């Protein structure tokens, strides 16, 4: 990456950082919404709804996907595709498993009669956790695009740029999940 490209990359990093700031405010507002409405005076109590097993499982997969992404990132500088591709693949796999667990979690809750419109607690729960899941799903699509970009042989400096921006996004999504764990689940599960 030459000086010119580095300068443009810094623009992009700075811009994306601001974008993540916007996302952070979004999630903070939703956290506040959740805190205001939980537990609600009517409808089920959070401790009746949440299932410990699926929360722990999905957390393990999502949080370790940050680690596997860092492993993959190590293959970025020297263009060591043997390191980059498998670890990025594992990250994608973990993300997909997380999504599957989320979907089955939501499905179970709905089966038990805990829907979006049951109470204000469940409304704020689904809106917050659902938006986060949407971010994970978007990230999965992004990873697939990154794979295709590898096939296309774009300039390596540009690939580094695209990859790094994605990794900031992915780590951010993980941090939000930690927030969700602490604010949404932990207080009512343990």
């Amino acid at each position: 990456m030459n000086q010119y490209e580095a300068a443009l990359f810094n623009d992009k990093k700075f811009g994306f950082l601001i974008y993540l700031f916007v996302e952070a405010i979004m999630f903070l507002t939703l956290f506040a919404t959740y805190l205001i409405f939980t537990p609600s005076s009517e409808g089920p109590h959070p401790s009746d709804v949440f299932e410990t097993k699926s929360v722990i499982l999905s957390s393990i997969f999502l949080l370790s996907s940050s680690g596997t992404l860092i492993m993959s990132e190590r293959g970025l500088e020297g263009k060591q595709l043997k390191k980059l591709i498998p670890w990025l693949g594992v990250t994608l796999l973990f993300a997909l498993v997380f999504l599957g667990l989320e979907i089955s979690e939501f499905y179970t809750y709905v089966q038990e009669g805990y829907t979006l419109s049951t109470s204000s607690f469940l409304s704020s729960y689904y809106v917050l956790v659902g938006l986060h899941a949407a971010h994970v799903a978007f990230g999965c699509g992004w990873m697939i695009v990154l794979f295709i970009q590898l096939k296309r042989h774009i300039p390596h400096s540009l690939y580094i740029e695209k990859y790094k921006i994605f990794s900031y996004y992915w780590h951010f999504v993980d941090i939000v999940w930690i927030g969700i764990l602490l604010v949404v689940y932990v207080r009512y599960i343990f």
Partner: protein
Amino acid sequence: MYIPFFEKHVPSDVIAAWVSVIIIGIVLATYVIKQNKWSVIWEYMRTTHHRKVGTLYMIFGFLFFLRAGVDALLIRSQLALPQNEFWLFQFQKYNEVFTTHGTMMIFFAATPMLLGLMNVAVPLQIGARDLAFPFLNAVGFWLFFAGGMLFNLAFFFDSAPAIGWTGYAPLSTSLFTPDVNSDYYVFGVQISGLGTIFTALNIIVTIFRHRAPGMKLMRMPLFTWASLITSFLILVAFTVLAIGLYLLMFDRMFDTKFFNGPDGDPIFWQHLFWIFGHPEVYILALPAFGLFSDIITTFSKKRIFGYPAMVISIGTIAFLAFTVWVHHMFTVGLGPLVNTVFALTTMAIAVPTGVKVFNWLFTMRGGVLRMTTPMLFSLGFIPSFVMGGVTGVMLSVSAADFQFHDSHFVVAHFHYVILASTILGIFAGIYYYFPKITGYQLNEKLGKWHFWLFLIGYHLTFFPMHITGMNGMPRRTFTYDVGEGLTATNFISTIGAFLMGIGVAVMFYNLFITIRKKERVGSDPWDGRTLEWTVASPAPEDSFQPMPIVKEMDPYWYAKQRGEDLETTDEKLASPISRDSIIPFIMANLLAVLSFGLMYGWIWLAVLAGAGVFMCFIIRAFRDEREQYYGKGEDGHESV
């Protein structure tokens, strides 16, 4: 499938709108075909250049301003006489008209026109060659365009929202407004708000990273400073609004329980809305303050008085903006302690604002004043704005607010401040920057007519409203009784509103004949002080070649005083790469289509449009404008 429009009785104003739009459409189409202007339209649909995007912002902001202005005239016509039955603007129709007036003016007229001026002027003022992310800039504009168009479409399907520009819950939830009307509000504002956030982000990165060599932060023109701080306000305020609308959308579409039901809390909507809404007032006012600062220095031939104090006061106002939102909710019943705290923070705003007013006055003191149109608007602004500020301090007394609340006194107050700062600021900005946008200068004589008609009309409209409000006239009501002593004041208000309308018509005529005459002006028609006056008019696509070196505030002015040219450097700075693209246009409009599908329950359409939006993301990723500039080794970038 439910087809809107044909299943219900269509009111005559909607028919009139359809007829006029079809006629105007035919006239425009014949003009375009005859003059063969397709290439221009195609060029502007694909452009990512900051001046052109800024021009688009101005054009559509101005069109929406005209529509919102017509709404205002309809409101005033209905209120001109007691028990009036003007056309059909009573009851529900009146609610729709004041809702669209407020929403359009705030979201689709004032904000975009200011963003347009920022787009045009900020890169030129700091010596940048474009905004940091030209593609994103186009996305931001087209999102505003799509949101505005979607919102306007509501009227043509006789589904204009009727919930006030604040969209207060529970009225805005599906419990009380189950029709699509309120959906137009939710989706229109949401989409355009997203665009505003992107543009703000872009402006921050541009200002921090693309200043000319030597342009320190404390050497920047005040409009740039105001744009920077405003952009931070936008990031926080519009994001909170986005979440508020997101929750409201869920309440309306999926029957969640945020704002109604046994646990739902309508006050929560008010908090979210005003955490956005109050900073929004400063999002509108601060850029105007910046414009006035630059204009007053230029036409006083003096450096701004107390530059650091001006910067600090902008920052202080921005900070205080987030501490005062509850003053919109004094009568909600949050208790005396909360009210007192927010009363005090509200009063504190008067301090930095006062600093600014005195600095403008001291800038003019002993200066060589030139009474051009932009200067007249700035001079008209100062006393008008101070009057609005005084009533603001009156309203901040929470005990007294119980008397003023929801009366025409409040209407008078916020029109006094917002019109005086934002709208006069935009007019001043249009006259001031018109040469940089088009290369022509607006007619000064007509400009002065515009100014005087507008200013007199403004005071004639809103000053009597203080009295009307004190006499007990509530806002948002479509009529009053004969014996209530409100007739004379209301009638005067209506005359004033039409005077303002004539003023705007004069401006429209001015724009028309100026563009028609095609008399070019040079790069520096106003004898300016800052870098934007060193580049050609209209601003070219490759400005600042070679780069000027900045060594002081108002560099161009002092260089002219010394009779020298600005020092330049051949050093290549990394400049943003821009490439024309139709993707922003498609992406934003697909989002509007998606909203349309959701609103009317045509899920297939929503899914198709959503897939289209994601396709745009992917296509964009594979056609990145950086691809052709990267990976060419150390010196492969001469031609950028």
